[in-house]
């Protein structure tokens, strides 16, 4: 049943009167006009008399910066000052008479209950987290026994202290970072003045750079012309700031640092903008990484490589002209011998004719040797500068075409699997196939020769295999055969210069691959070689 309007109005009037009384009481307490307080609770009224409390103490309590409460053993707030109410961001009148537990985090509540339970100790302290309307407030609570059943609690706000602690921890950390960093780190303000610097930065400049102009402390010269255009021939701090302002960061620009009489240092300069809370530029952080040692070793390496290249070229030229020039007189020996043999025909005895045949055979053999030596020299040709794509199938077809006569003569079968595109000179690939196939045909067994050529991916390489059903190779000779002029058989039994596999080895090696043989005597051989997949840097060359 709804209460009558009159009843409600009466109820409101009564409540207002009670509120006024309560407020008056609070005012009185705050002003020190009250000596005792009666608080109504579920178990009946509790009376709290401010025994012996002087007016001046109450004034002190009301005006101290700490929150102050009196609690009963259950944690009921019998009294608190305005500061405590402010801490938990609740109206004072709603705090008094409520259990303190509702203003604590669960963890802190547990702690406080433990504190309240330890009746014996006269004075206890603990760090707690209060719950305010807007979040948690770190605080330290000191609890003292007031009399038998009541306790006095003083609550100190730790927010500020915690913040200071955190900040000083951060400050210590960044100081340590600057002390320990191996790189020169320089913080520049908006005016180009060094506000902070790592130890390495001071060392690099050879003096204390703090509060000095960055440009005066570090005479940096960009190596790259476009960077010099951007930052100045000697890095200008205003232009540096303007650049990071626009682009937010500058990464690894190579610069040299002039250091008076000392040798200049090669550095990589990086810079990033420092912005305030409004996004406005307040400075920048410059990092300078010393790459002098790396540069020096690069230079040494390049010099070494150039020397090596030079000596290689010398050797190549020597081998080329030697084999070329040696062929000339040999050709004359051969042709003249043939002429003499022709003119003696019918007149010379059998032995003389045989001797002349020997001369011709030797001259021809030497001619072949020199020709192959030339191929070997050419196989060393530098492949890095003009690598191109070769279709392995096409290269193989060319090799087979070159061996057509031999294949027909031996009644050989060539079986070919699927072959990839490669980043190689086709001529080198043809030479590889030609040498390996002719090798397989040369060292055939009684059975009609069969040669299988296949390719498969092996991680970042293509692995080719040339398998035959020939006489095989004994284990001891498997590396030996890739040497120059290495032959396992007398020239009489197998023809050839002994350079073929050395050429293969050299070509494969040149492309960063590997060549080897797997074989058992009498069970055929498989020659395997690898060449790398197309390399990223080679791809870019084509673009």
């Amino acid at each position, binding site marked *: 049943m709804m209460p009558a309007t009159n009843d409600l109005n009466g109820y409101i009037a009564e409540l207002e009167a009670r509120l006024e009384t309560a407020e008056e009481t609070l005012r009185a307490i705050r002003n020190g006009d009250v000596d005792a307080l009666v608080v109504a609770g579920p178990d009946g009224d509790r009376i709290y008399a401010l025994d012996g409390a002087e007016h001046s103490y109450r004034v002190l309590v009301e005006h101290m910066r700490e929150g102050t409460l009196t609690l009963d053993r259950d944690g009921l707030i019998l009294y608190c000052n305005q500061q405590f109410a402010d801490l938990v961001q609740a109206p004072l009148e709603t705090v008094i008479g409520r259990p303190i537990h509702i203003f604590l985090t669960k963890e802190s509540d547990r702690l406080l209950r433990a504190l309240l339970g330890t009746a014996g100790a006269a004075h206890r302290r603990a760090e707690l987290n209060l719950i305010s309307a807007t979040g948690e407030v770190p605080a330290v609570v000191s609890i003292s026994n007031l009399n038998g059943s009541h306790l006095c609690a003083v609550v100190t706000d730790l927010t500020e202290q915690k913040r200071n602690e955190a900040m000083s921890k951060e400050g210590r950390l960044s100081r340590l970072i600057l002390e320990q960093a191996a790189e020169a780190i320089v913080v520049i303000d908006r005016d180009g003045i060094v506000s902070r610097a790592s130890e390495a930065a001071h060392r690099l400049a050879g003096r204390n750079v703090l509060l000095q102009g960055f440009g005066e402390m570090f005479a940096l010269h960009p190596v790259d012309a476009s960077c010099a255009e951007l930052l100045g021939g000697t890095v200008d701090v205003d232009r540096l700031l303007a650049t990071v302002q626009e682009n937010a960061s500058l990464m690894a620009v190579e610069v040299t640092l002039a250091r008076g009489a000392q040798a200049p240092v090669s550095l990589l300069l990086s810079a990033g903008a420092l912005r305030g809370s409004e996004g406005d530029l307040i400075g920048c952080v410059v990092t300078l990484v010393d790459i002098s040692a790396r540069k020096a070793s690069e230079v040494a390496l390049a010099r070494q490589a150039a020397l090596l290249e030079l000596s290689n070229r010398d050797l190549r030229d020597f081998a080329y002209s030697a084999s*070329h020039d040696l*062929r*000339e007189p*040999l*050709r*004359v020996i*051969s*042709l*003249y011998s*043939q*002429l003499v043999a*022709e003119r003696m025909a019918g007149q010379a005895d059998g032995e003389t004719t045989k001797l002349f045949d020997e001369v011709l055979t030797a*001259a*021809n053999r030497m*001619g072949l040797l020199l*020709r192959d030596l030339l191929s070997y020299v050419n196989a060393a040709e530098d492949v890095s500068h003009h690598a191109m794509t070769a279709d392995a199938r096409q290269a193989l077809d060319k090799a087979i075409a070159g061996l057509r006569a031999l294949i027909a003569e031996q009644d050989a079968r060539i079986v070919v699997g699927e072959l990839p595109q490669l980043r190689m000179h086709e001529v080198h690939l043809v030479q590889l196939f030609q040498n390996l196939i002719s090798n397989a045909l040369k060292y055939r067994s009684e059975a009609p020769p069969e040669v299988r050529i296949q390719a498969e991916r092996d991680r970042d390489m293509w692995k080719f295999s040339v398998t035959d059903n020939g006489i095989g190779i004994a284990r001891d000779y498997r590396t030996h055969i890739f040497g120059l002029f290495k032959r396992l058989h007398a020239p009489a039994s197998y023809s050839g210069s002994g350079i073929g596999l050395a050429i293969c080895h050299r070509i494969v090696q040149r492309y960063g691959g590997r060549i080897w043989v797997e074989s058992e005597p009498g069970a055929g051989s498989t020659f395997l070689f690898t060449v790398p997949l197309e390399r990223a840097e080679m791809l870019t060359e084509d673009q």
Partner: protein
Amino acid sequence: MRVLLVEDNPADVFLVREAMMHEGVEAELATAEDGEKAIRLVHNLDADPSLAGFDCFLIDLNLPRRSGAEVLREIRASVRSASIPVIMITSSEASDDREQALRSGATHVFVKPFRLSEFRSLARLVQNLYHPAAS
């Protein structure tokens, strides 16, 4: 037929002469032993119309003083010898040399062989290139 052989190696001069004889090619074989002498001969032909010209040039690529390639250039730039067949002779199997010579106007490039029968084919080549004027 008049043939100029520009060759510094006497053995090759002998072999060319032998090949001509063996193959029955009737030719008057003049020789020059370096590039400079050959070029002078070509210039002399232009300077003096009364001198008898050549019907074929055989030029070794690798010559002292002036190279075979230079001699070829001078022949192609001359008045009287510009359209005469030129066979460049080389001991190099390098295809670069061959292509370079053909681009410069050589009629044929002959790689010096090890086999006598192949060497003698040079004489037949000279014979085949000879087309005496109808007049």
